């Protein structure tokens, strides 16, 4: 449907009347007007006499000499008549110096981002700060001025901006930024961070950055708090409180010493200590303890007494020695208990051929033991060697003997080293007059002094002790169930009463892997063996007829076993 002639006439008339008005408006239009205000922004009119600040309203013209300031988190957008825009960020103050044909702004403090349309050849766009001025012909850039006016920056998003300060000027290209400070020459441009986002997007980006910063500050404190938890976990690891056993299960380990054990009679408490080792796995709890009662009250520094507990080298007798001990292992239901009483010192001297054992409390109680008894059979030459430290005999081959096997290893405190006992040495060890080994309360092995010898103190078990075994006998069988190349040994004791006691021992790494025999290759002395052993963990699994299929499974550091005398 078309317009009628009358309608066309009215329309043309109206257009003819309005065109001059539009033209005139363009002549009278203000070159700079307020396009948007967010938050608080104020204007101080140059023409006003009272020097007062008034609220800035959208659509207000901004004349040369007018000054605008924005509150924190606020923003004012000025639109220029050529489509250019100027965004004044929060906390800024700027003045319009010229509005047409040149557009010149003075930024006193804060941030101003300019989106400049292509200018006519006769006009220019310039932002001046107290320190530097930037002029362009069509670009996007941002300038900032510090609160005291002594520093600022120019960040160019698009095009090229000429920056002048003092007598120097330089072109700053898109993606570049130049910072300037009072008293400092203009530096070279560096990578900028300004984007050419439209004002609304730019504002969003600013807001997001601020929000991200807030979140980041919160997370940095969270990290400090998390580090506190991590520190506690680390300390537990450093103290060796968690290990992995041979089955890949985590074992928690706690070791501590109890002074003056309350279960003892009052007169013994000052002379006693108890070393406790606790193991916990996901589904079981095992423990080991060693309680020693010494010949006299223990000093505050327990190590003084413990240093000589397994024996002491030197002419002087040790001040502290064990009167009795009790060593228990349990899974909270079953138990293995070793008890010894009647502890006393044995003085040992060596002349290269024999060991001479003496009882310091009874000059008539002495023993002479041949250090090395050689026998030759069809299988070769063997040496039955006496170990005065462990009070036992071991039989080794001639080759092993020649390599130093069987030599008595002792700790020389004066040199802080392990060495072999030599002919000039005097050595003191503790012997016990009675011993018993019980499983779930049933005695499996025990000894007392052989009454036929008429002695009070045992000096050498092999000669002086009278043993009793469950059912009258014991028969040991040793095996290497995981192969001869790894350190998994099994010893089964077959007692005369038909019961058995089986002990599996594993030497393993921190992550529960059974160690290779080769780790101990070439180690012929007891001390060297112990040194190597200390680098590994020790797991001992005990089974017995009395346990009815249960077991006691202990992971213990070898050092504790060596100290307690369990491992010789």
């Amino acid at each position: 449907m078309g317009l009628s002639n009358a309608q066309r006439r009215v329309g043309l008339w109206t257009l003819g009347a309005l065109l001059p008005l539009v033209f005139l408006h363009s002549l009278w239009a203000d070159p700079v007007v307020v396009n948007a205000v967010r938050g608080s922004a104020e204007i101080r009119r140059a023409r006003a006499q009272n020097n007062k600040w008034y609220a800035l309203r959208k659509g207000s013209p901004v004349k040369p000499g007018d000054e605008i300031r924005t509150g924190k988190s606020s923003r004012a957008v000025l639109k220029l008549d050529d489509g250019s825009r100027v965004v004044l960020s929060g906390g800024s103050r700027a003045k319009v110096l010229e509005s047409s044909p040149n557009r010149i702004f003075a930024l006193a403090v804060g941030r101003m981002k300019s989106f400049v349309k292509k200018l006519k050849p006769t006009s220019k766009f310039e932002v001046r700060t107290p320190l530097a001025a930037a002029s362009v012909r069509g670009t996007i850039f941002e300038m900032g001025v510090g609160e005291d006016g002594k520093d600022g920056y120019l960040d160019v998003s698009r095009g090229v901006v000429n920056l002048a300060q003092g007598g120097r000027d330089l072109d700053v290209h898109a993606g570049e930024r130049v910072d300037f400070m009072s008293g400092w020459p203009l530096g070279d441009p560096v990578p900028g961070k300004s984007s050419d986002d439209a004002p609304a997007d730019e504002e969003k980006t600013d807001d997001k950055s601020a929000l991200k910063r807030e979140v980041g500050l919160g997370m940095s404190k969270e990290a400090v708090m998390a580090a506190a938890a991590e520190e506690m976990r680390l300390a537990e690891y450093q103290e060796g409180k968690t290990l992995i056993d041979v089955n890949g299960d985590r074992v928690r380990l706690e070791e501590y010493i109890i002074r003056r054990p309350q279960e003892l009679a009052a007169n013994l408490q000052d002379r006693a200590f108890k070393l406790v080792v606790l193991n916990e796995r996901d589904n079981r709890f095992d423990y080991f303890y060693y309680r020693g009662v010494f010949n006299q009250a223990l000093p505050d520094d327990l190590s003084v007494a413990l240093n000589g507990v397994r024996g002491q080298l030197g002419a002087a007798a040790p001040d502290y020695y064990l009167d009795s001990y009790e060593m228990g292992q349990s899974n909270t239901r079953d138990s293995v208990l070793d008890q010894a009483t009647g502890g006393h010192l044995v003085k040992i001297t060596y002349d290269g051929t024999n060991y001479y054992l003496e009882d310091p409390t009874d000059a008539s109680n002495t023993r002479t033991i041949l250090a090395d008894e050689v026998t030759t059979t069809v299988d070769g030459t063997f040496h039955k060697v006496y170990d005065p430290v462990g009070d036992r005999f071991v039989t080794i081959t001639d080759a092993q003997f020649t390599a130093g096997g069987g030599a008595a290893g002792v700790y020389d405190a004066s040199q802080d080293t392990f060495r072999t006992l030599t002919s000039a040495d005097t050595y003191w060890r503790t012997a016990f007059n009675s011993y018993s080994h019980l499983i779930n309360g049933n005695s499996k092995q025990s000894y007392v002094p052989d009454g036929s010898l008429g002695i009070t103190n045992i000096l050498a078990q092999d000669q002086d002790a009278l043993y009793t075994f469950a059912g009258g006998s014991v028969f040991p069988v040793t095996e290497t169930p995981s192969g001869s190349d790894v350190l998994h040994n099994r010893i089964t004791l077959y007692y005369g009463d038909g019961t058995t006691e089986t002990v599996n021992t594993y030497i393993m790494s921190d992550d529960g892997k059974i160690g290779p025999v080769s780790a101990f290759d070439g180690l012929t002395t007891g001390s060297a063996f112990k040194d190597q052993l200390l680098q590994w963990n020790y797991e001992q699994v005990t089974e017995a007829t009395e346990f009815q299929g249960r077991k006691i499974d202990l992971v213990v550091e070898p050092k504790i076993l060596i100290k307690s005398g369990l491992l010789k």
Partner: protein
Amino acid sequence: MRRPAAWAAVLLLTGSAGAAEVTPLWALQFMGGQHFFEGRSSALAGNIDVHYTPAVKFSDRWTLLPTYAGSYSGTRDVQELAGGGTLFQDSMSHGLLVKSVHALGERWKLKPSAGAKLELLRETVDEQWGDGLFDYRKWSGGLEAEYDQSKNAGGRFAYDFYQLTFPNYESLESAADPTLARELAGAKVLDSSNHLITLGWWSPLPAAGRLEAAAFINRRSFGDQPVVKSDGGLTGTERADTTLSLHVETAYPFTVGDAARAVGTLGLSYGSQSSNQNHFDARKAVFLPNYYDYSQWSLSPQVSAAFGESKWVSSLSASYQRRTYSNRPTQDGNGDYLSEKLSLSEITTQFAVTYPVAKNMRLRFQTSLAWSDSNMQYEKVFRYNYKIANYMMGFSYEY
């Protein structure tokens, strides 16, 4: 509470009425890789980190920032592999932090916050989530005041209280037969209450440089960890630690002609801990006073650069850290104590490259190498001397 006071509290918590503007913030990172320790390599595994904050802006003066931070870690970065990485399979954490930011005038902000966090660690292959020995929960609350001197300079002061509880960790001693436990033995020996004071400052430097400094002072009280005395027994006093951490970092952008644009940063940190707790080594029957006291410092340079017109950004970083225990002696290979005090040095280097594959998304590859060196020779229960390397690759997304 009287009614006006109650209204004031409600207003403080809810702010003025008005349409709320929600800005979602996302940060997501997925990285997969493996580490190598003394010739052994871990299985391939992945790490995921998620941060989500639906920031609610109620007004120009009040913004609420509820943040969920979650992570799953199947392999660890070299910085986390203290002790050689034993006893670790995987971990996950879930945290919620709510922060309310109130602008007071032109320069001040007040920021109350509250949070909760749950971290779960599985340390053996068959361990179930939630059964981890070192699982912990954290509750926190605090107040921070920030002063903005200018857009790029300001400071903050904060006080936070937080509680750490390890629900699955009780001392074995407390669970053992009474005749096997010391008098006063505690059960929840790792649980602690903490008072954290934070001081921070940031400022521009000449030539587009930036300076950030922060100090953290943490007073930690253990409610159930009696102090060990010289004979190995326990006192009636509970353990209390004070830790101090100072950190200063500067950053400078620079160019190498037209070939590269780069930012260099240098961080310097100092930290110390003072504790009233001692240690009695039952293995050696040796009493070690102030066992947990230490001081440490670290230096961390980093350079990130983009070359020419390439979109790849490469970064090379290193850190050197040295910790010295003021009263903890070092030990020889047999565990015997020596006169020298224990010290640990750690050097970590990392090379990383990122490439933008889409808006807000970057591909990332990184490889790290770390050396740990110590005068401690006794390493049967914890590794002090080792080298470790890893590589990880994945992507990050940030919106």
